[in-house]
């Protein structure tokens, strides 16, 4: 990869859209694999993207995931249009979930999405404002 090369991607995420759920993450994974990011790192990027994507689809009114791939790292910026998270520290706890039963029946709602993102990224920041929305920024270094 050329040292000045930057790849920018953007995906719109629709609330409740389970048919395309995982598409953005799959494309992101494919691209980082194509440019030669190590499999283990590509996998971490994929997990971060997937958990963020699913949270926007399941818990929010919709949003966007932006990806910036640099030679040395991948940055994921996820933003949604609300309803936001009242207590971010609580939401970050493993096992905490407000997913309704029909969502749990599909295998979501383990309360592990946010912890997975934090664990699989090198830098993780989440800010949320009730009603307005939630913003997450993750950095995954390639080396």
């Amino acid at each position, binding site marked *: 990869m050329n040292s000045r090369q930057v790849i920018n991607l953007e995906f719109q995420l629709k609330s409740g859209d389970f048919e395309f759920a*995982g598409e953005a993450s799959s494309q992101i994974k494919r691209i980082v694999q194509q440019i030669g990011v190590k499999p283990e790192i590509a996998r971490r990027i994929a997990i971060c993207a997937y958990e963020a994507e699913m949270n926007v689809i399941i818990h929010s009114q919709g949003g966007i995931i932006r990806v910036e791939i640099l030679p040395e790292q991948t940055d994921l910026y996820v933003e949604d249009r609300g309803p936001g998270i009242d207590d971010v520290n609580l939401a970050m706890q493993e096992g905490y979930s407000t997913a309704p039963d029909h969502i749990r029946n599909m*295998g*979501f709602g383990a309360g*592990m999405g946010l912890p997975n993102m934090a664990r699989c990224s090198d830098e993780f920041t989440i800010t949320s404002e009730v009603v307005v929305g939630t913003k997450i920024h993750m950095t995954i270094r390639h080396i």
Partner: protein
Amino acid sequence: MTIGEIINKLSLNEVATATGLDKNIKKGYVSDLLSNVMAFASADSIWITMQGHQNVVAVAVLAGLAAVIIAGGVKPEVETVDKAVSEGVILLTTNLSSFEVVGRLYELDVRGE
């Protein structure tokens, strides 16, 4: 033990087949919670679940799993099978329970860790 051999020994149904049947399987994971699979299933492992909807395929692709066994007689949705075919995910089904599948895999030297 390759995926092909596992399919034969356990008489699994191949509902979506792909390249990689000769891949050697050393590890397995069983869970019906998708984020739990994301967190704990190793790359190249075989995943046993009773979920049959299409997000199973996304999880398999993103976590880099070798194959998925849908156990307990659960019939995957048509969309799940279509997606597995297009994404190149090996999707297998069986009437055996998850417990029975895992037990038989363990006998074939597939391990959880």
